[in-house]
């Protein structure tokens, strides 16, 4: 009886040992798929990258580097909530993008009660400059490209192509502006005026924001808002940036502001393997359900496909 009991405990022990090994193996495998921003965040200065076109959501940009306002706002809030983080540095390498996304990020930066610095690397134009201007201090490389204050909503028109191929656009709309911006028909003067009015309004917001953020005269910013880009060195003379330099200069500024040594820590959300798989699955299901052809057609036809970018 005692022997039988002993052998039972031995069998149980074997199962336990086997399960311990299996648990560690599975935990290790899962850790390989965990997203980057889950790493332990030691350091007192958060570095948030703004790389690539600025968009509101990164859905549908599986293999492209984009700066999604959804993700960036999340990271800003995370850094702001963390008492150990004393300052946030935005490492910018973006040509701009969605005006809405840029405004969302800029507004979030202004809510932060910590020192904020923009470090413009290669490029920080348009919407990316809008974001940079909302920080306390802008550091740019002397050769980096910045500025380009202005908005754009250009698109390709296919009306000539359709006509050439004897394809007609059957216009069936309930309101005269319902298909405003359809690439299959030419803009009427009235439609063009409407479009330009909207662009002017957004441009005014952009100029107002830059003037307010940079303590510049509105007239002066208006003069600069031709869409022209400026090299870092010119931008400094025009008051669009505060300092020429790189990460070291940004670090020195932060250290002066927080009164302690700056230890940079990257805050970023990099899609893990599972996240990427789920994105592929989402996109696949979407297109399977809708039909690839019709999805393309609807996207091209819908006025919503026109993006106003800054």
């Amino acid at each position, binding site marked *: 009886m005692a022997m039988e*009991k002993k052998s*039972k*405990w031995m*069998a*149980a022990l074997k*199962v*336990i040992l*086997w*399960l*311990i090994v*299996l*648990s*560690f193996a*599975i*935990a290790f495998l*899962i*850790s390989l*798929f*965990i*997203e980057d921003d*889950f*790493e*332990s*965040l030691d350091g007192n200065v958060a570095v948030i990258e703004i790389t690539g076109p600025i968009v509101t959501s990164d859905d549908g940009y599986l293999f492209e580097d984009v700066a999604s306002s959804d993700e960036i706002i*999340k990271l800003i*809030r995370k850094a702001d909530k963390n008492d150990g983080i004393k300052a946030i540095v935005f490492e910018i390498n973006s040509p701009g993008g969605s005006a809405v996304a840029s405004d969302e990020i800029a507004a979030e930066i202004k809510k932060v009660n910590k020192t904020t610095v923009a470090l413009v690397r290669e490029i920080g134009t348009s919407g990316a400059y809008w974001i940079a201007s909302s920080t306390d201090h802008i550091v740019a490389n002397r050769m980096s490209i910045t500025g380009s204050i202005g908005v754009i909503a250009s698109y390709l028109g296919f009306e000539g192509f359709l006509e050439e191929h004897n394809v007609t656009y059957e216009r069936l709309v309930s309101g005269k502006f319902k298909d405003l911006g359809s690439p299959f028909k030419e803009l009427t003067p009235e439609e063009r005026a409407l479009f330009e009015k909207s662009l002017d309004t957004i441009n005014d917001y952009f100029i107002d924001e830059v003037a307010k953020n940079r303590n510049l005269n509105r007239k002066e910013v208006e003069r600069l808002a031709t869409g022209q880009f400026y090299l870092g060195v010119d931008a400094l003379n025009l008051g669009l940036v505060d300092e020429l330099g790189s990460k070291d200069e940004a670090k020195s500024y932060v250290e002066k502001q927080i009164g302690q040594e700056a230890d940079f820590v990257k805050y970023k*959300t990099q*899609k*893990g393997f*599972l*996240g990427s798989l*789920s994105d592929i699955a989402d996109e696949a299901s979407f297109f399977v359900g809708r039909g690839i052809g019709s999805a393309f057609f609807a996207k091209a036809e819908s006025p919503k496909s026109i993006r106003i970018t800054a």
Partner: protein
Amino acid sequence: MKSVIASKKTFVAQASVLKRIGAFIVDLVIINIIILFPFRGLFESILPTTSFSEAFEFLRQDAGAGTMLNAIMFAISALSILYFMLMEKKIAQTPGKMLFSLYVKPQGKDLKNWQLFVRSMFLIPAFPFVLLWLIDPIAMLFTKENQRLSEILSRTKVVEQYRI
């Protein structure tokens, strides 16, 4: 004169609810040590907080963390099910049951894999299996042989061994 020493005899009877609860607690402690421990680091890196409300808010804002947490929950659940299935398959007991002399008994001859799985499916962290956490103990109180619903479905029961 001939002396007669009665040898001990083994009897099998219905397991008491209290002993079953005791055995389950012991098993949960073991699972906590051998299965949950390796995942502790992952939990801490995904949820950088110990406050429930903060964790909830964090998961609400971060869908990626929620997905990862679900993956970990399912892995833990699968390993816990394996714990019960392997133990009961090999020795018809778990360490908890061994301490209280409890055994799993099938209606037929041997415990089959499907029976072992159905017995443990309350550990699957998804609807409707989570309902078994409520239904199983209630069923235990109202059935003749103190059977959980999972046991009725798997045609198994837990018995207690006495030696007199």
